[in-house]
Protein backbone atom coordinates (compact mmCIF):
# COMPACT_ATOMS: atom_id res chain seq x y z
CA UNK A 1 0.00 0.00 0.00
CA UNK A 2 1.49 3.32 -1.03
CA UNK A 3 1.46 6.51 0.98
CA UNK A 4 -1.70 8.47 1.56
CA UNK A 5 -2.96 10.42 -1.42
CA UNK A 6 -2.04 14.16 -1.37
CA UNK A 7 -5.04 15.89 0.19
CA UNK A 8 -6.78 19.12 -0.56
CA UNK A 9 -5.11 21.46 1.91
CA UNK A 10 -6.01 25.04 2.61
CA UNK A 11 -3.28 27.25 1.16
CA UNK A 12 -1.22 29.40 3.47
CA UNK A 13 -3.29 32.45 2.64
CA UNK A 14 -6.68 31.00 3.51
CA UNK A 15 -5.57 28.64 6.27
CA UNK A 16 -5.84 31.28 8.95
CA UNK A 17 -8.70 33.30 7.44
CA UNK A 18 -12.18 32.08 8.37
CA UNK A 19 -14.93 32.36 5.77
CA UNK A 20 -18.57 33.08 6.63
CA UNK A 21 -21.10 30.29 6.05
CA UNK A 22 -24.84 30.30 6.54
CA UNK A 23 -26.66 27.50 8.37
CA UNK A 24 -28.86 26.02 5.69
CA UNK A 25 -30.12 23.06 7.72
CA UNK A 26 -29.92 21.87 11.33
CA UNK A 27 -30.78 18.24 12.11
CA UNK A 28 -30.81 16.62 15.58
CA UNK A 29 -29.32 13.16 15.12
CA UNK A 30 -29.46 12.04 18.76
CA UNK A 31 -29.92 13.67 22.17
CA UNK A 32 -26.44 15.18 22.04
CA UNK A 33 -25.44 15.07 18.38
CA UNK A 34 -26.55 17.27 15.51
CA UNK A 35 -25.68 17.87 11.87
CA UNK A 36 -25.16 21.29 10.29
CA UNK A 37 -25.45 21.90 6.58
CA UNK A 38 -23.48 25.05 5.77
CA UNK A 39 -23.51 27.07 2.55
CA UNK A 40 -21.01 29.85 1.68
CA UNK A 41 -22.52 33.20 2.52
CA UNK A 42 -21.03 34.64 -0.63
CA UNK A 43 -22.72 32.00 -2.79
CA UNK A 44 -20.81 29.68 -5.08
CA UNK A 45 -19.00 26.53 -4.05
CA UNK A 46 -17.97 25.50 -0.56
CA UNK A 47 -14.37 24.70 0.32
CA UNK A 48 -13.43 21.47 -1.48
CA UNK A 49 -12.35 18.66 0.83
CA UNK A 50 -11.36 15.01 0.77
CA UNK A 51 -13.04 12.38 3.00
CA UNK A 52 -11.42 12.41 6.45
CA UNK A 53 -10.41 16.08 6.48
CA UNK A 54 -11.70 18.54 9.05
CA UNK A 55 -12.59 22.22 9.31
CA UNK A 56 -12.34 24.65 12.22
CA UNK A 57 -15.83 25.93 13.06
CA UNK A 58 -16.18 29.17 15.02
CA UNK A 59 -18.94 29.92 17.50
CA UNK A 60 -18.51 33.43 18.86
CA UNK A 61 -17.65 34.21 21.57
CA UNK A 62 -16.93 30.65 22.72
CA UNK A 63 -14.15 29.86 20.26
CA UNK A 64 -13.47 27.29 17.58
CA UNK A 65 -13.40 23.50 17.31
CA UNK A 66 -12.07 21.00 14.77
CA UNK A 67 -14.93 19.05 13.19
CA UNK A 68 -14.59 16.43 10.46
CA UNK A 69 -16.67 16.87 7.36
CA UNK A 70 -19.42 14.24 7.34
CA UNK A 71 -21.12 14.98 4.01
CA UNK A 72 -20.30 13.87 0.47
CA UNK A 73 -17.20 15.44 -1.09
CA UNK A 74 -18.99 15.45 -4.44
CA UNK A 75 -21.63 17.84 -3.14
CA UNK A 76 -19.76 21.06 -3.78
CA UNK A 77 -22.37 23.63 -2.77
CA UNK A 78 -22.41 22.82 0.95
CA UNK A 79 -20.30 21.57 3.85
CA UNK A 80 -21.93 19.07 6.21
CA UNK A 81 -20.62 18.57 9.75
CA UNK A 82 -21.93 16.24 12.44
CA UNK A 83 -21.13 17.53 15.92
CA UNK A 84 -21.47 16.13 19.41
CA UNK A 85 -22.34 18.78 22.00
CA UNK A 86 -19.81 18.07 24.73
CA UNK A 87 -18.03 21.39 25.42
CA UNK A 88 -18.67 25.14 25.43
CA UNK A 89 -18.03 25.63 21.70
CA UNK A 90 -19.98 22.62 20.47
CA UNK A 91 -22.84 23.54 22.81
CA UNK A 92 -22.82 27.04 21.37
CA UNK A 93 -22.93 25.52 17.87
CA UNK A 94 -25.92 23.47 19.05
CA UNK A 95 -27.81 26.74 19.61
CA UNK A 96 -27.49 27.79 15.96
CA UNK A 97 -30.62 28.23 13.91
CA UNK A 98 -31.25 28.18 10.20
CA UNK A 99 -29.89 31.37 8.65
CA UNK A 100 -27.29 31.98 11.40
CA UNK A 101 -23.69 32.61 10.43
CA UNK A 102 -20.74 30.34 11.24
CA UNK A 103 -17.12 30.99 10.38
CA UNK A 104 -15.25 28.14 8.77
CA UNK A 105 -11.54 27.64 8.26
CA UNK A 106 -10.04 24.69 6.41
CA UNK A 107 -10.03 22.01 5.20
CA UNK A 108 -7.11 20.53 7.09
CA UNK A 109 -5.29 17.26 7.46
CA UNK A 110 -4.58 14.09 5.57
CA UNK A 111 -7.65 12.21 4.33
CA UNK A 112 -8.64 8.56 4.17
CA UNK A 113 -6.84 6.64 1.40
CA UNK A 114 -9.88 6.22 -0.82
CA UNK A 115 -7.93 6.27 -4.09
CA UNK A 116 -5.48 3.64 -2.82
CA UNK A 117 -8.38 1.47 -1.69
CA UNK A 118 -9.65 1.06 -5.26
CA UNK A 119 -9.51 -2.57 -6.31
CA UNK A 120 -9.53 -3.70 -2.68
CA UNK A 121 -12.20 -4.91 -0.29
CA UNK A 122 -12.93 -2.10 2.15
CA UNK A 123 -14.02 -2.41 5.76
CA UNK A 124 -15.05 0.70 7.66
CA UNK A 125 -15.13 0.31 11.44
CA UNK A 126 -16.78 3.14 13.34
CA UNK A 127 -17.50 3.69 17.00
CA UNK A 128 -19.88 6.36 18.29
CA UNK A 129 -19.43 9.74 16.61
CA UNK A 130 -16.57 8.10 14.63
CA UNK A 131 -19.12 7.23 11.97
CA UNK A 132 -19.26 10.89 10.91
CA UNK A 133 -15.69 11.14 9.48
CA UNK A 134 -16.19 7.82 7.70
CA UNK A 135 -19.49 8.69 6.06
CA UNK A 136 -17.82 10.64 3.21
CA UNK A 137 -15.79 7.50 2.42
CA UNK A 138 -18.98 5.50 2.16
CA UNK A 139 -20.55 8.11 -0.11
CA UNK A 140 -17.46 8.08 -2.30
CA UNK A 141 -17.29 4.31 -2.62
CA UNK A 142 -21.02 3.97 -3.28
CA UNK A 143 -20.74 6.61 -6.02
CA UNK A 144 -17.89 4.68 -7.67
CA UNK A 145 -18.97 1.24 -6.52
CA UNK A 146 -17.49 -0.77 -9.41
CA UNK A 147 -13.98 0.42 -8.63
CA UNK A 148 -13.95 -1.34 -5.25
CA UNK A 149 -14.26 -4.90 -4.02
CA UNK A 150 -16.55 -5.89 -1.18
CA UNK A 151 -17.65 -3.11 1.13
CA UNK A 152 -18.41 -3.60 4.77
CA UNK A 153 -19.49 -1.06 7.40
CA UNK A 154 -19.24 -2.13 11.03
CA UNK A 155 -20.67 0.35 13.49
CA UNK A 156 -20.86 0.29 17.27
CA UNK A 157 -22.84 2.74 19.40
CA UNK A 158 -23.54 3.07 23.08
CA UNK A 159 -27.31 2.53 23.00
CA UNK A 160 -29.97 2.31 20.26
CA UNK A 161 -30.73 5.99 20.88
CA UNK A 162 -27.12 6.88 20.08
CA UNK A 163 -27.11 5.28 16.61
CA UNK A 164 -26.27 7.98 14.06
CA UNK A 165 -27.79 8.28 10.58
CA UNK A 166 -30.31 5.54 11.29
CA UNK A 167 -32.30 6.07 8.08
CA UNK A 168 -29.19 5.98 5.94
CA UNK A 169 -27.95 2.86 7.70
CA UNK A 170 -31.24 1.17 6.90
CA UNK A 171 -31.01 2.32 3.29
CA UNK A 172 -27.44 1.08 2.92
CA UNK A 173 -28.33 -2.20 4.58
CA UNK A 174 -31.02 -2.68 1.95
CA UNK A 175 -28.43 -2.61 -0.83
CA UNK A 176 -27.04 -5.88 -2.12
CA UNK A 177 -23.51 -4.56 -2.53
CA UNK A 178 -22.82 -3.37 1.04
CA UNK A 179 -22.63 -5.35 4.26
CA UNK A 180 -23.82 -3.16 7.13
CA UNK A 181 -23.56 -4.46 10.69
CA UNK A 182 -24.61 -2.37 13.69
CA UNK A 183 -24.23 -3.23 17.35
CA UNK A 184 -24.88 -1.42 20.61
CA UNK A 185 -23.21 -1.85 23.98
CA UNK A 186 -26.54 -1.78 25.77
CA UNK A 187 -29.79 -2.80 24.17
CA UNK A 188 -33.30 -2.01 25.31
CA UNK A 189 -36.59 -3.81 24.93
CA UNK A 190 -37.28 -2.15 21.54
CA UNK A 191 -33.89 -3.04 20.06
CA UNK A 192 -33.85 -6.18 17.96
CA UNK A 193 -30.38 -5.70 16.55
CA UNK A 194 -27.00 -6.85 17.81
CA UNK A 195 -25.74 -6.26 21.34
CA UNK A 196 -21.99 -6.47 21.88
CA UNK A 197 -18.79 -4.68 20.97
CA UNK A 198 -17.94 -3.56 17.45
CA UNK A 199 -14.89 -5.85 17.19
CA UNK A 200 -17.22 -8.87 17.36
CA UNK A 201 -18.80 -7.73 14.11
CA UNK A 202 -15.50 -8.15 12.32
CA UNK A 203 -15.76 -11.91 12.69
CA UNK A 204 -18.82 -11.76 10.41
CA UNK A 205 -17.40 -9.37 7.84
CA UNK A 206 -17.29 -10.90 4.39
CA UNK A 207 -13.92 -9.87 3.01
CA UNK A 208 -10.63 -11.17 1.74
CA UNK A 209 -8.24 -10.08 4.51
CA UNK A 210 -5.11 -9.95 2.37
CA UNK A 211 -6.72 -7.54 -0.09
CA UNK A 212 -8.68 -5.52 2.44
CA UNK A 213 -8.16 -1.87 3.34
CA UNK A 214 -9.52 -1.05 6.80
CA UNK A 215 -10.43 2.44 7.95
CA UNK A 216 -11.13 2.78 11.65
CA UNK A 217 -12.52 5.75 13.55
CA UNK A 218 -13.64 5.99 17.16
CA UNK A 219 -12.23 6.18 20.68
CA UNK A 220 -8.57 5.12 20.79
CA UNK A 221 -9.29 2.04 22.91
CA UNK A 222 -11.87 0.94 20.36
CA UNK A 223 -9.38 1.53 17.52
CA UNK A 224 -6.73 -0.43 19.44
CA UNK A 225 -8.97 -3.48 19.79
CA UNK A 226 -10.19 -3.12 16.22
CA UNK A 227 -6.60 -3.16 15.01
CA UNK A 228 -5.94 -6.33 17.02
CA UNK A 229 -9.08 -7.96 15.59
CA UNK A 230 -8.12 -6.93 12.04
CA UNK A 231 -4.64 -8.37 12.49
CA UNK A 232 -6.18 -11.58 13.84
CA UNK A 233 -8.35 -11.76 10.70
CA UNK A 234 -5.20 -11.40 8.59
CA UNK A 235 -5.48 -7.80 7.38
CA UNK A 236 -1.90 -6.48 6.90
CA UNK A 237 -1.05 -3.63 9.28
CA UNK A 238 0.05 -1.48 6.33
CA UNK A 239 -3.56 -1.61 5.12
CA UNK A 240 -5.08 -0.47 8.42
CA UNK A 241 -5.80 3.27 8.76
CA UNK A 242 -6.91 5.08 11.90
CA UNK A 243 -8.10 8.63 12.50
CA UNK A 244 -6.52 10.27 15.54
CA UNK A 245 -8.04 13.06 17.57
CA UNK A 246 -6.23 15.70 19.58
CA UNK A 247 -6.81 19.33 20.44
CA UNK A 248 -6.32 20.81 16.98
CA UNK A 249 -6.18 24.61 16.86
CA UNK A 250 -4.22 26.24 14.06
CA UNK A 251 -4.69 23.40 11.59
CA UNK A 252 -1.31 23.93 9.95
CA UNK A 253 1.12 22.46 12.48
CA UNK A 254 2.28 25.77 13.92
CA UNK A 255 0.72 26.08 17.36
CA UNK A 256 1.64 22.63 18.71
CA UNK A 257 -1.66 22.04 20.50
CA UNK A 258 -2.21 18.72 18.76
CA UNK A 259 1.30 17.32 19.00
CA UNK A 260 1.46 13.56 19.51
CA UNK A 261 5.06 12.38 19.75
CA UNK A 262 6.75 13.47 16.51
CA UNK A 263 3.42 14.26 14.80
CA UNK A 264 1.09 17.21 14.57
CA UNK A 265 -2.28 15.55 14.20
CA UNK A 266 -3.74 18.52 12.27
CA UNK A 267 -1.06 18.37 9.59
CA UNK A 268 0.42 14.85 9.63
CA UNK A 269 -2.99 13.29 10.38
CA UNK A 270 -5.70 12.95 11.43
CA UNK A 271 -5.59 9.83 9.25
CA UNK A 272 -2.51 7.64 9.68
CA UNK A 273 -1.60 4.25 8.36
CA UNK A 274 -1.15 2.08 11.43
CA UNK A 275 2.59 1.30 11.07
CA UNK A 276 3.33 5.04 11.06
CA UNK A 277 1.39 5.86 14.22
CA UNK A 278 2.10 2.54 15.99
CA UNK A 279 5.10 3.78 18.00
CA UNK A 280 2.96 6.38 19.75
CA UNK A 281 -0.46 4.72 19.48
CA UNK A 282 -1.92 3.88 22.90
CA UNK A 283 1.09 5.39 24.67
CA UNK A 284 -0.11 6.45 28.11
CA UNK A 285 -0.51 10.18 28.71
CA UNK A 286 1.02 11.11 25.37
Amino acid at each position, binding site marked *: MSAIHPPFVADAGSALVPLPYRVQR*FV*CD*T*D*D*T*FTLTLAPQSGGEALPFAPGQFNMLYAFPSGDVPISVSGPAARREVLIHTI*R*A*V*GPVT*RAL*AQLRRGDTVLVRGPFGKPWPVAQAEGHDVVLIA*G*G*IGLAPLRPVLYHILAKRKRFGRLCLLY*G*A*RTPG*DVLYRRELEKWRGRLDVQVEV*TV*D*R*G*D*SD*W*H*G*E*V*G*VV*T*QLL*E*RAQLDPARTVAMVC*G*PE*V*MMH*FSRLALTKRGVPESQIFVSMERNMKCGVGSCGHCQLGPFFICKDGPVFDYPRIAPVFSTKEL
Partner: protein
Amino acid sequence: MNPPVHTLSPQLLSLQFFAGFGPAELQILARHSRQVSWPADVEVIREGQVATEFFLILDGRVRVETHLPGRGEVTLQTLLRGDVLGWSWLTANASFSFSARTLQPTNALVFEGTALLRECEQHPRLGYLLMRRFALVMSDRLRHTRLQLLDLYSPPRSSGPFQALKKR
Protein backbone atom coordinates in the same frame (compact mmCIF):
# COMPACT_ATOMS: atom_id res chain seq x y z
CA MET B 1 -36.09 -34.86 19.29
CA ASN B 2 -33.56 -35.33 16.52
CA PRO B 3 -31.21 -38.33 16.78
CA PRO B 4 -27.48 -37.82 17.46
CA VAL B 5 -25.50 -36.47 14.53
CA HIS B 6 -22.94 -39.38 14.46
CA THR B 7 -20.76 -37.59 11.94
CA LEU B 8 -20.10 -33.93 11.47
CA SER B 9 -20.37 -32.67 7.92
CA PRO B 10 -17.46 -30.77 6.34
CA GLN B 11 -19.65 -27.69 6.45
CA LEU B 12 -19.99 -28.00 10.22
CA LEU B 13 -16.31 -28.78 10.62
CA SER B 14 -15.46 -25.49 8.96
CA LEU B 15 -16.74 -23.72 12.09
CA GLN B 16 -13.95 -22.35 14.25
CA PHE B 17 -15.30 -24.28 17.23
CA PHE B 18 -14.08 -27.58 15.76
CA ALA B 19 -10.58 -26.36 14.85
CA GLY B 20 -7.88 -28.49 16.46
CA PHE B 21 -10.02 -31.54 17.24
CA GLY B 22 -8.79 -34.83 15.74
CA PRO B 23 -11.03 -37.51 14.15
CA ALA B 24 -11.36 -39.46 17.41
CA GLU B 25 -12.49 -36.42 19.39
CA LEU B 26 -14.83 -35.29 16.61
CA GLN B 27 -16.48 -38.69 16.64
CA ILE B 28 -17.13 -38.42 20.37
CA LEU B 29 -18.47 -34.89 19.98
CA ALA B 30 -20.77 -36.03 17.19
CA ARG B 31 -22.01 -38.94 19.28
CA HIS B 32 -23.16 -36.58 22.00
CA SER B 33 -24.73 -33.93 19.80
CA ARG B 34 -27.95 -33.46 17.92
CA GLN B 35 -29.30 -30.77 15.64
CA VAL B 36 -32.24 -28.63 16.73
CA SER B 37 -34.37 -26.01 15.01
CA TRP B 38 -36.19 -23.31 16.90
CA PRO B 39 -38.69 -20.79 15.58
CA ALA B 40 -38.29 -17.11 16.50
CA ASP B 41 -38.99 -15.92 20.04
CA VAL B 42 -38.42 -19.24 21.79
CA GLU B 43 -36.75 -19.41 25.19
CA VAL B 44 -33.83 -21.77 24.62
CA ILE B 45 -32.45 -21.79 28.15
CA ARG B 46 -33.76 -20.25 31.32
CA GLU B 47 -31.81 -18.55 34.07
CA GLY B 48 -31.54 -20.93 37.04
CA GLN B 49 -32.29 -24.06 35.00
CA VAL B 50 -29.88 -26.96 35.61
CA ALA B 51 -27.19 -26.74 32.93
CA THR B 52 -26.42 -30.07 31.30
CA GLU B 53 -25.99 -28.93 27.69
CA PHE B 54 -24.34 -26.35 25.52
CA PHE B 55 -25.20 -25.10 22.05
CA LEU B 56 -23.35 -24.19 18.88
CA ILE B 57 -25.34 -21.77 16.73
CA LEU B 58 -25.42 -22.88 13.08
CA ASP B 59 -27.60 -20.08 11.72
CA GLY B 60 -30.14 -17.61 12.99
CA ARG B 61 -29.77 -15.35 16.00
CA VAL B 62 -30.08 -15.78 19.75
CA ARG B 63 -29.99 -13.18 22.46
CA VAL B 64 -28.63 -13.76 25.95
CA GLU B 65 -30.81 -11.90 28.41
CA THR B 66 -31.64 -11.35 32.02
CA HIS B 67 -34.66 -9.95 33.78
CA LEU B 68 -34.25 -6.71 35.68
CA PRO B 69 -37.13 -5.59 37.88
CA GLY B 70 -38.60 -2.43 36.42
CA ARG B 71 -36.68 -2.82 33.15
CA GLY B 72 -37.93 -6.16 31.91
CA GLU B 73 -35.72 -8.40 29.78
CA VAL B 74 -32.35 -6.80 29.09
CA THR B 75 -30.22 -8.13 26.25
CA LEU B 76 -26.61 -8.70 27.26
CA GLN B 77 -25.32 -10.10 24.00
CA THR B 78 -26.49 -11.51 20.68
CA LEU B 79 -25.07 -14.74 19.27
CA LEU B 80 -24.84 -15.78 15.63
CA ARG B 81 -23.44 -18.59 13.46
CA GLY B 82 -20.39 -20.16 15.04
CA ASP B 83 -21.05 -18.75 18.52
CA VAL B 84 -21.28 -20.98 21.59
CA LEU B 85 -24.15 -20.65 24.02
CA GLY B 86 -23.66 -21.90 27.57
CA TRP B 87 -20.64 -23.00 29.57
CA SER B 88 -22.24 -23.65 32.94
CA TRP B 89 -22.30 -27.40 32.14
CA LEU B 90 -18.52 -27.42 32.70
CA THR B 91 -19.04 -27.13 36.43
CA ALA B 92 -21.04 -30.06 37.78
CA ASN B 93 -24.48 -29.32 39.24
CA ALA B 94 -24.41 -25.80 37.84
CA SER B 95 -27.33 -23.81 36.56
CA PHE B 96 -27.53 -21.33 33.72
CA SER B 97 -26.62 -17.80 34.79
CA PHE B 98 -28.73 -16.13 32.11
CA SER B 99 -31.62 -16.91 29.82
CA ALA B 100 -31.44 -17.08 26.02
CA ARG B 101 -34.16 -16.50 23.44
CA THR B 102 -34.19 -16.79 19.66
CA LEU B 103 -34.58 -13.53 17.75
CA GLN B 104 -35.27 -15.35 14.49
CA PRO B 105 -35.59 -18.99 13.33
CA THR B 106 -32.38 -20.64 14.47
CA ASN B 107 -30.58 -23.93 13.92
CA ALA B 108 -28.07 -25.19 16.42
CA LEU B 109 -26.12 -28.23 17.53
CA VAL B 110 -26.93 -29.28 21.08
CA PHE B 111 -24.14 -31.06 22.96
CA GLU B 112 -24.82 -33.25 26.00
CA GLY B 113 -22.43 -31.65 28.41
CA THR B 114 -22.86 -34.15 31.21
CA ALA B 115 -22.08 -37.07 28.90
CA LEU B 116 -19.11 -35.20 27.46
CA LEU B 117 -17.71 -34.60 30.95
CA ARG B 118 -17.78 -38.38 31.48
CA GLU B 119 -16.04 -38.90 28.12
CA CYS B 120 -13.39 -36.38 29.13
CA GLU B 121 -12.52 -38.56 32.15
CA GLN B 122 -11.78 -41.42 29.73
CA HIS B 123 -10.21 -39.32 26.96
CA PRO B 124 -7.91 -36.69 28.47
CA ARG B 125 -7.03 -35.24 25.05
CA LEU B 126 -10.69 -34.53 24.36
CA GLY B 127 -10.93 -32.91 27.79
CA TYR B 128 -7.85 -30.81 27.15
CA LEU B 129 -9.06 -29.61 23.74
CA LEU B 130 -12.56 -28.96 24.99
CA MET B 131 -11.32 -26.97 27.98
CA ARG B 132 -9.02 -24.94 25.72
CA ARG B 133 -11.91 -24.23 23.38
CA PHE B 134 -14.12 -23.05 26.21
CA ALA B 135 -11.30 -21.05 27.78
CA LEU B 136 -11.12 -19.15 24.49
CA VAL B 137 -14.88 -18.63 24.42
CA MET B 138 -14.86 -17.39 28.01
CA SER B 139 -11.85 -15.10 27.55
CA ASP B 140 -13.50 -13.56 24.45
CA ARG B 141 -16.72 -12.98 26.39
CA LEU B 142 -14.80 -11.50 29.32
CA ARG B 143 -12.85 -9.14 27.04
CA HIS B 144 -16.02 -8.03 25.28
CA THR B 145 -17.80 -7.50 28.60
CA ARG B 146 -14.90 -5.41 29.87
CA LEU B 147 -15.03 -3.28 26.75
CA GLN B 148 -18.78 -2.80 27.20
CA LEU B 149 -18.17 -1.81 30.83
CA LEU B 150 -15.65 0.82 29.72
CA ASP B 151 -18.57 2.67 28.15
CA LEU B 152 -16.27 3.93 25.40
CA TYR B 153 -18.81 6.12 23.66
CA SER B 154 -20.05 7.96 26.72
CA PRO B 155 -19.67 11.77 26.84
CA PRO B 156 -16.40 13.00 28.38
CA ARG B 157 -16.63 13.55 32.15
CA SER B 158 -15.65 17.18 31.68
CA SER B 159 -18.70 17.82 29.56
CA GLY B 160 -21.02 18.13 32.59
CA PRO B 161 -24.80 17.93 32.53
CA PHE B 162 -26.43 18.66 29.22
CA GLN B 163 -30.00 19.20 28.26
CA ALA B 164 -30.89 16.91 25.39
CA LEU B 165 -31.20 18.61 22.03
CA LYS B 166 -34.75 19.25 21.00
CA LYS B 167 -35.85 17.96 17.63
CA ARG B 168 -36.37 20.85 15.24
